[in-house]
């Protein structure tokens, strides 16, 4: 049996891969949160519920309509984003001028309602969702076995994160977004319809969560609490990366996923808390986060 630093390579790389997968989800979710916080000034606590909705839309589509994984990957983000846009227009838009706390409380309440609704209908035991046949199986790399679907999740999430970063940093639309984050009134006075841009940004952030939810469906079982289990860790990732920092969210998401994976190998007892320990240290040393501005 091959070992590295006295640890069997299969275990080490297996945990690293798990960490990378978790990191992929942290990155996708914290990216959406950062986008929404940057422009809307809302700490979107319903992000986990929207991630869960993405997985459920995929499961419902497959179960009742026979819509396969690829259809779900394309349509679930659109459907959940449309739901998010209705929330933004009818509720969140009333809170932009108030303290962050109000947005957090509203979205926390919404998360409980959404989760309660799905719990009532489907219970909490979790529904299986099969890996699509195109991505079934795995590769034996010699030092470890790599399931194809998990490689796909890491790849898809990297493409999504880098694509979003390019959209924001390198396009005219992204420049509008960055400018509106700083001074929405002036951007609107230049002739841009900022309220529509805000609504679409929320929709896009929600779509990212739903996309992550569909990717997660074949890995974790589809259940109403899958989002709330994850969202606390994702908030820690956002705090460590720096609220509102796009690149910070992506890099921190992957790094912390890997750190968590490595901790599982070295000292498994700390794996569930290592991210929060990092959060405490970062808050003490650099309160604006590793990639945040100021402080």
């Amino acid at each position, binding site marked *: 049996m091959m070992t590295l630093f006295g640890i069997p390579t299969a275990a080490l790389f297996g945990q690293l891969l798990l960490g990378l997968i978790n990191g992929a989800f942290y990155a996708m979710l914290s990216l959406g949160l950062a986008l929404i916080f940057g422009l809307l000034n809302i700490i979107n606590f319903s992000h986990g519920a929207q991630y869960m909705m993405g997985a459920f839309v995929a499961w419902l589509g497959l179960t009742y309509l026979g819509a396969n994984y690829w259809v779900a990957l394309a349509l679930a983000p659109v459907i959940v984003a449309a739901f998010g846009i209705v929330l933004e227009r009818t509720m969140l838009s009333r809170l932009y001028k108030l303290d962050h706390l109000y947005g957090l409380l509203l979205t926390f309440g919404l998360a409980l309602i959404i989760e309660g609704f799905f719990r009532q209908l489907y219970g909490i035991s979790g529904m299986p969702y099969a890996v699509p046949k195109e991505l079934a199986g795995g590769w034996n790399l010699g030092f470890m076995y790599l399931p194809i679907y998990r490689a796909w999740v890491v790849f898809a999430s990297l493409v999504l994160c880098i694509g979003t970063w390019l959209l924001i940093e390198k396009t*005219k639309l992204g*420049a509008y977004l960055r400018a509106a984050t*700083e001074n929405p009134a002036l951007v*609107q006075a*230049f*002739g841009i319809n*900022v309220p529509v841009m805000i609504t679409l940004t929320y929709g896009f952030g929600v779509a990212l969560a739903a996309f992550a939810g569909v990717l997660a469906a074949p890995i974790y079982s589809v259940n109403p609490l899958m989002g709330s289990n994850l969202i606390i860790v994702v908030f820690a990732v956002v705090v460590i990366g720096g609220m509102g920092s796009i690149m910070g969210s992506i890099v921190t998401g992957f790094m912390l996923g890997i750190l968590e994976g490595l901790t599982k190998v070295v000292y498994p007892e700390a794996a569930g808390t290592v991210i929060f320990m990092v959060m405490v240290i970062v808050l003490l040393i650099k309160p604006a986060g590793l990639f945040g501005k100021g402080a």
Partner: protein
Amino acid sequence: MRNDNGALLKVDGLEAWYGESHILHGMKFDVHQGEVVTLLGRNGAGKSTTMRSIMGMVAKRKGSVTFEGTETIAMNSNKIARLGVALCPEERGIFASLNVKENMVLPPVVKPGGLPLSEVYDLFPRLAERANSQGTKLSGGEQQMLAIARILRTGATMLLLDEPTEGLAPVIVQHIGDIIRKLKERGFTILLVEQNFHFAATVADRHYVVEHGHVIDMIPNAELQANMGKLKGYLGV
């Protein structure tokens, strides 16, 4: 429907509030095509609020503001901008997360007829040299130039310049004066808020004096010297 007096911008009975504070109390003035007109007045007289109200950036306002005959008092600022009105705000509004070039091309082209980017850089060569610097790394004078430069390529014909010389060195003030005269020659119509009436006298056709949220006097620039005593009295200098 066009205004009967042919003014490009006509403000009549404009009132505006910030929250419960009533700032403008019936502003009334007009600006004709190709004119440079200033609003002079003490701090807090309501000059900047007038600019922001014309631009649609003050939520609570009433009265009448017409641009090219179109009533804009109930319009959102993005709609007003699309008519061809552009604001260079007092605080300059340079975006820190954008570089100079990105700041420059941020405002969308709302009408044909704006200056091509190359001509804007001809007017402000310093900005071409610093195209890749972050907006807020510029000096105060460069930031002011950028704030003016970026609205010249949009096709807006009415420029609202809010205290463009505030806090700048005399040589930069002179440069901005030259720019305003060039823009007038090119047919831009300019409404200028100024505290520095010596500077205003070098660029403007007419001056409106604002006090407590309304216009108390109008002085043509040709008569400014003769009215200097009165003006100094208004401004408390």
